[in-house]
């Protein structure tokens, strides 16, 4: 389709004006990237948009480049947390050299989804190492919740935080208490909000 054949999809008019401008988007857990946005405005019905879907192509190309950076950086970040590529492939049951392929740009949306999960919750590799066994998974979750609560409690003046970890690391209990601002919604309970043993 050539540009002079483009019509307004809303009313069918050929009386349209085309413009281009640079737009930016933030890749989830990745860098911001720029792409050229194409916009048409119909002079008859005044509806606007990318009548010929030209922006989609520009967006996808720019997004792919940003994703390559995200994949590379995430794999390197995981390596820095002692989650090597070979370890990651073994525990998630991926074919050998999968992460090498990903690093060189040969990755899918599913690969990015898995990397985002691993970047946000690196301990998921420990869970995968234990083949997602339910008791172990719960134990890790409670351990990480205790760590997160500890972080939150340290940031709030007057907060009281206690965590009990059994010597073998198999059981954890955590209690955090602090005064919530009076204006915010409160959950009133006479038992700790999170208290669990595993």
């Amino acid at each position, binding site marked *: 389709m050539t540009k002079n054949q483009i*019509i*307004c*999809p*809303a*009313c*069918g*008019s050929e009386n349209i004006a085309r413009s281009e401008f640079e737009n930016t*988007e933030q890749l*989830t857990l990745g860098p911001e990237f720029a792409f050229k946005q194409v*916009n048409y405005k119909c002079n*008859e*019905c*005044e*509806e*606007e*948009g*990318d*009548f010929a*879907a030209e*922006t*989609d192509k520009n*967006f*996808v190309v720019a*997004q792919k480049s940003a994703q390559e950076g995200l994949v590379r950086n995430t794999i390197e970040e995981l390596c820095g947390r002692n989650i090597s590529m070979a370890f990651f492939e073994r525990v998630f049951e991926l074919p050998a050299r999968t992460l090498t392929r990903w690093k060189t740009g040969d990755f899918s949306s599913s690969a990015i989804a898995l990397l985002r999960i691993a970047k946000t919750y690196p301990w998921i590799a420990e869970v995968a190492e234990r083949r997602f066994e339910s008791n172990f998974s719960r134990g890790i979750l409670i351990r990480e919740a205790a760590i997160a609560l500890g972080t*939150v409690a340290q940031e*709030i003046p007057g907060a009281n935080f206690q965590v009990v970890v059994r010597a073998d690391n198999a059981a954890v209990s955590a209690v955090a208490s602090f005064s*919530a601002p009076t204006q*915010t*919604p*409160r*959950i009133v309970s006479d038992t700790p*909000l999170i208290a669990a043993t595993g």
Partner: protein
Amino acid sequence: MSEPTYNMDDFLKACTEGTQKVFVHRGAMETARSDFNLNTQERVLRFVGNDGLEKPTFINSKQWENNPDSSTPIQVDAWAFFSGLLHGYIAFFFQPKTKKWNIKSLKKNTESDPRNLALHGPLTKFLAK
């Protein structure tokens, strides 16, 4: 309450066929990005065409106000839907002249969520502290 002007299944089927059949207006595209993280027209149409609109509920059917051809009135159907925890709103119409469906609006629904999520708001705020 008015009846839908269009058969929802016809619209959903058109969405599976991509941008040749359906156009997403600029305002709808902007809120699709900000509210649903759907960044391209193709992604919007794949989402809508592949059962992305959960529990769709018809809201109303109103005339397209910008229609320059008063001899051929065009109705815009509005539906509420869910996508996970999000309560959404979509409005669309069909233009027989161009044989294209038009998604005029796709955004978060400003009407209150009819589901019972009493604890969700306070709990989210608490955890965000």
